[in-house]
């Protein structure tokens, strides 16, 4: 293998490192190191997982043939085109899953470990039954099988090769299984398990590795759309999206929802957002997650934490629509958050996953999203493939790396990409292609720009107290309209309604009547309708009529002159007295201090209780209740009783130790030094290979270390399987304190 890697051309090496990027980091010291790393289990696993179905099938077929050449692999697969197989084999060589030795192509040793049941074939029967009959006889024998046995064989032939006989299986099934075992057609590792040995399976398959070779990728079909349809629909979705993101920010800017202790958004708050935006909960969750992923929204980190828009939102908001889209689309493509999980039950958990919560973070989401979009990108232009066919194509593309709920994930990605305008009516849009081509933000924005409606800079004000923006509003105007009016309907246009509350919101935000009316006048080509102007003025008339504030003390006196004197007194300036009515002064200083200060300066105030009574100090002196103090610590001297107890305990300990020594001397086997796991593993592996027994120290469930004479069979996945005291045992390596050969 190392020689093969050393003999590769620079181009080949370049391709190898490009396709198996894990080999390049950290940079290997030399080509031998590269070869060694390329054959490690982790790296091979990664490479195999990345194979598409065609390469995987060829690789599996190659594992079955004695000499790896295109003809025999093609024969094993049952296909006629050796040329295709040749190319695929070459590819597998390029990624160093095959290597070329003196006798031709060879498999990298670890591939067999990674694919233990390659092509759905079980272990060889040679160990249990010795040499089996030739294939023709096996087939002939199988044909004589009674129907139940035949049915079992049919089920196992194309894999998976093992089956479990359920408890209470019908007699004829058990009968069939017994017949198969008697005729040595299956292995029976335990009473209720059947495994079809590879020799039998291959014979029954007629020597072929796969039932359905799939060397060509499936071509998804669907509905053909036109460029105008697709880009038009995308543009319209983006208009909606941008407006909705603004709504999220406006809504949460005014009423920030609480951050749950577990870090997410409460279901109730999500529902409230959905109803405020007039969308369903799924879309509301998507919008919240998208805004969060784009950094436009964050946990404000305060003591009573809440979700609120970030300053980045204000920057984002000022940009033109196409730029804003580019930011959102890019964040969506790269985020590892999975909005579609919101509202579902976490695997193996209880309750539901909250939006913005840690459980909606699902790293595979990014790769899968990219895979789905790549598939969309590969179909002919403006074709909207069906979701089912897209799943098929994905399963071909990544047979070993797909989640069980692929259909759901694909549906979610399609839904989200539609909302984002990455697709329009199911087909990828021009802007979507630009996104997948990883273009920079400016070019991405430019791809979307022609499909977005021109921003408008005016609204139509109407006497029924509505305003209609006949297109997306330019940034500042949009913010203003959202502030002083409520959105009633959205789509191509936005309908705003002015209400008492909405106008008051504007005034609360610091706008004056004339500013509001001025801004409305500027935004409208027609004069402000009289009823609208009246409404604004009417709200303003009452706005701020009543004032509310907080102070720590008040001074009241029926004699205005006395209060005037206090205000004029320089010595009282630390009290920061302020007159709020003819007979009332207020101060931000505590009431007791105010009383004291006034007394010092020749006034004669009396303190008042909150309900207006006069505070009369009880008796002369000040009293305080006693604080509880802890009792002082005292040490007790060592007395005789204690000493004798101690001595008895020490004796008992000594005897126990002696007993243990005696026991250790009398027991079988060598002493067991504690060995490090590497050594332990090596000892166990060696013993497994040589079929030798070993003494192991094993820490049991109670933490007691026990000695065992152990016959290891195989070591894998951090465990060692074998037999001890005549029964099968599996030990975890990390619990083995030491091992020594018998």
């Amino acid at each position, binding site marked *: 293998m190392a020689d093969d890697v050393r003999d590769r051309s620079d181009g080949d090496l370049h391709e190898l490192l490009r396709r198996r990027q894990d080999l390049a980091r950290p940079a290997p010291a030399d080509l031998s190191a590269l070869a060694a790393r390329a054959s490690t289990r982790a790296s091979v696993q990664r490479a195999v997982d990345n194979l598409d179905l065609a390469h995987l099938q060829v690789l599996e077929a190659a594992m079955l043939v004695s000499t790896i050449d295109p003809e025999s692999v093609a024969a094993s697969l049952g296909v006629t085109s050796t040329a295709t197989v040749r190319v695929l084999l070459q590819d597998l060589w390029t990624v160093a899953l095959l290597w070329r030795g003196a006798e031709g192509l060879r498999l990298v040793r670890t591939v067999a470990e990674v694919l233990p049941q390659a092509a759905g074939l079980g272990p060889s029967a040679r160990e249990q039954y010795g040499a089996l009959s030739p294939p023709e006889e096996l087939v002939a024998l199988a044909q004589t099988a009674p129907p139940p046995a035949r049915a079992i064989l049919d089920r196992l032939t194309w894999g998976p090769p093992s089956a479990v006989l359920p408890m209470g299986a019908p007699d004829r099934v058990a009968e069939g299984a017994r017949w198969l075992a008697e005729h040595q057609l299956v292995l029976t590792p335990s009473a209720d398990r059947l495994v079809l040995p590879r020799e039998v399976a291959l014979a029954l398959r007629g020597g072929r590795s796969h039932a359905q070779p799939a060397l060509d990728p499936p071509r998804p079909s669907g509905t053909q759309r036109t460029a105008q349809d697709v880009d*038009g*629909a995308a*543009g*319209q979705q983006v*208009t*909606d999206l941008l407006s909705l993101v603004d709504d999220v920010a406006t809504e949460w800017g005014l009423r920030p929802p609480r951050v749950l202790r577990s870090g997410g958004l409460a279901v109730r708050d999500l529902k409230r957002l959905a109803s405020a935006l*007039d969308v369903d909960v799924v879309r509301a969750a998507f919008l919240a997650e998208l805004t969060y992923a784009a950094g436009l929204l964050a946990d404000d980190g305060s003591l009573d934490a809440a979700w609120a828009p970030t300053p980045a939102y204000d920057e984002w908001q000022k940009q033109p629509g196409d730029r804003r889209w580019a930011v959102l689309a890019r964040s969506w493509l790269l985020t590892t958050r999975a909005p579609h999980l919101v509202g579902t039950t976490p695997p193996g958990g209880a309750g539901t996953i909250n939006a913005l919560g840690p459980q909606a973070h699902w790293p595979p989401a990014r790769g899968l999203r990219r895979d789905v979009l790549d598939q969309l990108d590969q179909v002919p232009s403006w074709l909207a493939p069906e979701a089912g066919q897209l799943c098929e194509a994905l399963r071909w593309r990544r047979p070993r790396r797909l989640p069980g709920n692929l259909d759901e994930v694909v549906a979610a990605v399609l839904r989200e990409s539609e909302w984002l305008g990455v697709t329009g*009516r199911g087909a990828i849009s021009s802007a979507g292609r630009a996104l997948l081509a990883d273009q920079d933000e400016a070019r991405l924005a430019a791809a979307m720009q022609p499909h977005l*409606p021109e921003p408008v800079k005016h609204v*139509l*004000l*109407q*006497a*029924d*107290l*509505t305003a*209609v923006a*006949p*297109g997306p509003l330019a940034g500042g105007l949009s913010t203003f309209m959202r502030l002083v009016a409520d959105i009633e*309907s*959205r*789509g*191509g*246009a936005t*309908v705003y309604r002015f209400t008492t509350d909405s106008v008051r919101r504007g005034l609360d935000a610091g706008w004056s009547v004339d500013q509001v009316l001025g801004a409305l006048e500027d935004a409208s080509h*027609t004069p402000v*309708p*009289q*009823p609208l102007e*009246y409404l604004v003025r009417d709200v303003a008339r*009452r706005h701020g009529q009543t004032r509310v504030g907080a102070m720590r003390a008040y001074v009241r006196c029926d004699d205005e002159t006395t209060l005037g004197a206090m205000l004029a007194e320089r010595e009282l300036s630390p009290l920061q007295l302020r007159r709020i009515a003819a007979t009332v002064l207020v101060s931000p200083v505590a009431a007791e201090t105010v009383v004291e200060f006034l007394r010092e300066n020749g006034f004669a105030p009396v303190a008042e209780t909150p309900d207006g009574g006069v505070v009369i100090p009880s008796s002369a002196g000040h009293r305080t209740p006693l604080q509880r103090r802890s009792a002082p610590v005292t040490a007790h001297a060592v007395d005789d009783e204690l000493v004798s107890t101690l001595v008895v305990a020490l004796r008992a300990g000594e005897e126990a130790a002696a007993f243990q020594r005696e026991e250790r001397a009398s027991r079988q086997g060598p002493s067991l030094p504690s060995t490090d796991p590497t050594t332990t593993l090596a000892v166990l592996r060696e013993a497994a290979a040589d079929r030798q027994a070993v003494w192991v120290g094993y820490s049991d469930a109670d933490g007691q270390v026990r000695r065992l004479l152990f016959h290891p069979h195989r070591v894998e996945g951090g465990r060692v399987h074998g037999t001890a005291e005549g029964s099968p045992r599996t030990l975890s390596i990390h619990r083995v304190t030491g091992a020594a050969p018998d």
Partner: protein
Amino acid sequence: MPDGPLIVQSDKTLLLEVDHPRAEEARRAIAPFAELERAPEHIHTYRVTPLGLWNARAAGHDAEQVVNALITFSRYAVPHALLVDVAETMDRYGRLTLEKDPDHGLVLRTTDRPVLEEVLRHKKIKPLVGARLDDDRVAVHPSERGHLKQELLKVGWPAEDEAGYVDGEAHAISLDSSDWSLRPYQQQAVDGFWHGGSGVVVLPCGAGKTLVGAGAMAKAQATTLILVTNTVSARQWRDELLRRTTLTDDEIGEYSGARKEIRPVTIATYQVLTTRRKGAYTHLDLLDARDWGLILYDEVHLLPAPIFRMTADLQARRRLGLTATLVREDGREADVFSLIGPKRYDAPWKDIEAQGYIAPADCVEVRVTLPDPDRLAYAVAEPEDRYRLASCSPVKVPVVEQLVRQHRGEPTLVIGQYLDQLDELAERLGADVITGETPVSQRQKLFQAFRVGEIGLLVVSKVANFSIDLPEASVAIQVSGTFGSRQEEAQRLGRVLRPKGDGRTAHFYTVVARDTVDAEFAAHRQRFLAEQGYAYRIVDAGDLPTPAA
């Protein structure tokens, strides 16, 4: 990107920019399937509802036309989901058809078997149908025709009623058009109705709905039952029919609390039909008294629930509903659709006003400020008393006086809800009061005097809301109303919108107490006016012009 006049919103509303050069074209294209919701000055809002789409189907439009209209006139890309929804909704109409079968009588036929299976399994529909005739048809008892249509609409599979109508007892009726003729839109309304069989004609108050009724009778040439809201209205129908048709006094009967005449054309009030004695409707016989060929419903939006139930049994007769608005405050629009029929004709107020058939109106809200003691009384009042307290405030009286003075010489109505307030106003203004307690003869005498100009001012309670005809009222002053009812506003505005002899502008004042629920309710009503395209102003009582003494 096409620059159309229409913007399609995601909530299925359509915004029509009225100043756009293609606005009229677009309006005509969308009118068959979209209901006009608001018509303020710049942008009109239409709503696409399932009922509207089915109305369009009933009128012979198909989904392709609807989708095409939307795409042709839309400024931006139309949401795909909406187009799909339109097509799917429209497709539901006509899968089920009610037909006459020579052997089995009334049958429900389907063109889509799963739909029939679905509805037949519905527990409310099962008892309404009879034996299954074959895969596609099921027998229906004629008495369940109405109920079945109601229930089918509820489950979203409206049935097309093609079972036809009985001709009824023939009776010669024709329009006496020696000195007048039907206006073009009235003719269109009559034709639309006749073509459709049964249905509702929507026309603004003052646009001559009675004449549409007369036109329909002339088409039907059969005995007719006319259902109206009250006795005064019944008498007006009678007068109008005598004047506009060849019918004579002997041919028209009145069936009301006072008289029980059954003649070839009988005018009955809702009230008498819904009178119950010992839990039974005592006048139901009227419906079967003759073999009616046409049933006319005046003011469909006020149709009381028992009449709906009775109508369900009258499905074999032609039905014409007349109304100014399909908006029902009780939300029973679907019953109107299934029991009386789909909308057959509709014209926006503004269009008819522009054609000069109804008077232009100047709507003004006058705000009065309650004096301090009243504000305090208002603040501590129980919520249910607040409206009365605010709307009956005595500060409104001088304002009304001032307005009356300002329009001296013009026929003026003062309209209110509370009798004490009306009595007080009448006393101060020296005018007569008409309330529910006023005898019919007295009412008619006063109306007549008002009509001929003998008296120029009347104070009326809400009895004036419905179906009285005061051709020359050109000023209405509203002092209190029924909690912001939009429908009432339409009716009251209708009072002054009837065409004036000299084309004067009508004036419509609402006097409202500031900062109270009165103003809140007024805001609802005002919104309705603005939505109907009437500009309105708000003035403070102090800013009213003082008429020269």
